[in-house]
């Protein structure tokens, strides 16, 4: 069964600390994505990847880095966390080259930066 697994599901971090959010997919999809969701907004794209070793900036990349060490894993890294990065983060995988016909989402990670 296709799956995208995010860890941790909940995280409390201190301002200025480093946070790593992990995403694993078993769908053998080339594309992976990181989004954040804030109240009143849809999901906004932070970073994405077309395959192992590749990362691309999305619409709101400032303050975030991404790492794609393998086909299955895609991490989002907050080097210096700030309270404005408190949000719910979603990871997704997609099968497409230029367009995805199949997309699966993780269940989300709730990050609170205090």
């Amino acid at each position, binding site marked *: 069964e296709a799956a995208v697994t995010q860890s941790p599901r909940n995280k409390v971090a201190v301002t200025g600390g480093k946070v790593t959010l992990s995403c694993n997919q078993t769908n053998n999809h080339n594309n992976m*994505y990181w*989004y954040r969701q804030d109240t*009143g*907004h*849809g*999901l*906004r*794209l932070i970073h*994405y990847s077309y395959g192992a070793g590749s990362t691309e900036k*999305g619409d709101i990349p400032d303050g975030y880095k991404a790492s794609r060490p393998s086909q299955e894993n895609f991490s989002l890294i907050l080097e210096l966390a700030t309270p404005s990065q408190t949000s719910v983060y*979603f990871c*997704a995988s*997609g099968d*497409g080259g*230029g*367009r*995805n*016909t199949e*997309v699966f*989402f*993780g*269940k*989300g990670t709730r990050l609170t930066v205090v």
Partner: protein
Amino acid sequence: AQSVTQPDARVTVSEGASLQLRCKYSYSGTPYLFWYVQYPRQGLQLLLKYYSGDPVVQGVNGFEAEFSKSNSSFHLRKASVHWSDSAVYFCVLSGEIFFGDGTQLVVKP
């Protein structure tokens, strides 16, 4: 540029009434379009998707959507809503995966 617009932030309907949630897209070429639903504090569930062919696509739980290239739209419809349909609905465009801001549906008993 690729974008998705959901012009209605919130829609309120009575149980048993029909529903239309609007979605407009901007994309050069034929888009791949999806509708997802998100229940409170949950993840995203796929309702339906469109790639090509018949412009009316059927989804789960009685939902359907109609693609219009001339109007750049992909509106979601349901003939008779149930209180359990109350949720946030997202129209999604691929390309990369772009989300509209979502429409919160409130179904009144």
